[in-house]
């Protein structure tokens, strides 16, 4: 009888090398300890093995099953349900373009089409150099910043086809890019480790990029009596608006981050110094 090749991985999958297994088992034990019942740690464990290999491999599935006393079939059933678990390696930078209705209409469709063309790859594919993978994503809860692009699940808001092309070019060239909301990018695997439940330990990462952009603060500003673009007759009460305009990055290259390179926490000491004053006039606090 001839063998029919189904393209399924041979079982059982090979285990991790012993030193990897031991290291991950210690991480797994910590995650499992956070839940009243061990199986609750399955999603975190799948993020953990994705952090190890850049995707959820049969070996990773075997590892999760062993840690939780489940079958690999049970783990596979869960892993394949959730779209963030990849069955093929992601690029170092995983780029998601929102093409749900609102972002799509506001330009996400064009951004995604142009990015695919620019990179020469299709949906859910990775560039040959392994740097960039792209996929179209569903609504990422940032509609007031549409069109939205995510890189390793950090926000790159208010994108245009030009800014998105520049973004991936910078990523491939190794130039630093800054999310509009989020911290300096780390690789896809490091991001997966944060998702597993191990906090980002890079100093200052949590404080990067402020409390949100103009949309997050739009209503608050109006309530403070400030004007928004296109709203008439309001007074300006915040020192925010007295900041020199030359600090603004140009509209068409918003993600280069050059003006701020090498001084990511420049604002920090000033915030600390201003803390006590802000106490008195929280209403006119500095921008984040």
């Amino acid at each position: 009888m001839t063998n029919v090749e189904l393209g399924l991985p041979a079982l059982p999958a090979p285990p991790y090398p012993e030193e990897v297994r031991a290291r991950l088992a210690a991480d797994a034990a910590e995650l499992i300890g956070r839940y009243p019942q061990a199986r609750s740690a399955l999603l975190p464990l799948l993020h953990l093995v994705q952090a190890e290999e850049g995707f959820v491999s049969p070996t990773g599935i075997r590892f999760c099953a062993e840690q939780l006393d489940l079958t690999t079939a049970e783990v596979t059933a869960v892993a394949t349900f959730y779209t963030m678990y990849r069955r093929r390696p992601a690029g170092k930078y995983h780029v998601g373009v929102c093409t749900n209705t609102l972002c799509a209409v506001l330009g996400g469709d064009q951004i995604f089409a142009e990015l695919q063309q620019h990179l020469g790859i299709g949906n859910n594919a990775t560039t040959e150099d392994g740097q960039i993978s792209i996929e179209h994503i569903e609504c990422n809860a940032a509609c007031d910043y549409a069109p939205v692009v995510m890189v390793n699940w950090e926000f790159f808001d208010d994108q245009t086809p030009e800014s998105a092309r520049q973004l991936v070019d910078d990523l491939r060239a190794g130039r630093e890019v800054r999310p509009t909301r989020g911290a300096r990018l780390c690789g896809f695997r490091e991001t997966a480790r944060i998702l597993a439940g191990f906090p980002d330990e890079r100093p200052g990462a949590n404080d990067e990029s402020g409390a949100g952009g103009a949309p997050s603060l739009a209503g608050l500003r109006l309530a403070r009596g400030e004007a928004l673009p296109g709203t008439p007759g309001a007074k300006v009460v915040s020192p925010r608006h007295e900041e020199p305009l030359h600090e603004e990055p140009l509209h068409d290259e918003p993600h280069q981050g050059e003006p701020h390179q090498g001084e990511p926490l420049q604002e920090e000491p000033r915030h600390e110094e201003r803390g006590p004053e802000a106490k008195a006039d929280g209403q006119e606090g500095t921008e984040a």
Partner: protein
Amino acid sequence: MTSAESAEKLLTPVLSDPWDDSRPWTLATYRRHHGYEGLKAALAMPPDDVIALVKDSGLRGRGGAGFPTGMKWQFIPQNDGKPHYLVVNADESEPGTCKDIPLLFANPHSLIEGMVIASYAIRCDHAFVYLRGEVVPVLRRLHAAVAEAYEAGLLGRNILGSGVDLDITVHAGAGAYICGEETALLDSLEGRRGQPRLRPPFPAIAGLYACPTVVNNVESIASVPAILARGKEWFKGLGTEKSPGFTLYSLSGHVTNPGQYEAPLGITLRQLLDLSGGVRAGHRLKFWTPGGSSTPMFTEEHLDVPLDYEGVGAAGSMLGTKALQVFDETTCVVRAVTRWTEFYAHESCGKCTPCREGTYWLVQLLRRIEAGEGVDGDLEKLLDIADNINGKSFCALGDGAASPIVSSLKYFRAEYEQHLAERRCPFDPAASTVWADGPRPGHQSATEREVHA
């Protein structure tokens, strides 16, 4: 009257109040804004009184369904010998919805304080935040804020010397809209595929690990501290009689200034547009959603509908998540609905046949209509399939999938027919983009300045 004056009168920043202060995600800043004072007030009261207070305040769920929060807490059986759990639904994924993510990014402590109060009230010593996975910046801030709260004695053993214990576990999801449905969320949190459970039993009786569980939306829980600190009368003084309080309205789409607008319940879209700069210059409103894509769409004729639970319901839709997605006359309604339907088909969990099969076939029909390849009878077929999903599927995802189809055919049937008659889409997608008329005035630079300054 200028719109600026009305803005100051109409808007009521409570949750968003600290957001323009320095580093509002830190405990120090939150304390400057009366942070954790609501908790102190709560700990000075018996737990049942806290439940009664929240119930009397009239606070209703901000995640879509509008169920009274205090009543959910009251359903938890006491002295039953079982552990109780609080699970916060931070799986914000409903298309158009973007309130919990900015809230948690700017000030995660408001949620943590609310969680301690709620846990104290329902006698729970282990609470969970189920955060959707695709928002690492928020996860980072939640991790840090929880650590900060432990360090300050606001979590852990013997909180503020009260004898109350609480642990919070921050749990990241992995990309599944259905996990916003509370019972699917619980299955997911138990390490399973996120598929909805049959109810009853409701989570209050058999939730996480089959124990009594409260599942609340982020904004609902984050609204609790202010009620404790400032009282139920203050809260009831805002909003309308049946929909008291303040809430975050998220304006997005073809508007001059998209963003978060915190206002008393009952404000109208006309008021919000008037004070925020209106529909983008040179265009007019075509259709909008009051609370995400699952809520039947509205048109210009609904501009004066009070955006509270009753007002929107009476006008034939739902307040939902108050995600006000605004589309102007350049937008093809068939395209918009096709995209939403593709979303529901992609996110259908597959458990029940009407939703799994129905959403698939809706997508096939809509794609061919949009491409100009529709045939006579397609519109009737769309409505027929939608009718076979709505009310007949296992959970609300199916109902949500039917909403945009039924409502768009109600208001824009002629546009569908035009696609059939002309055998093409009569719209130019390029005209709908943000850059179609040049950059949004001032918007980009303001964003960049704040983010990077």
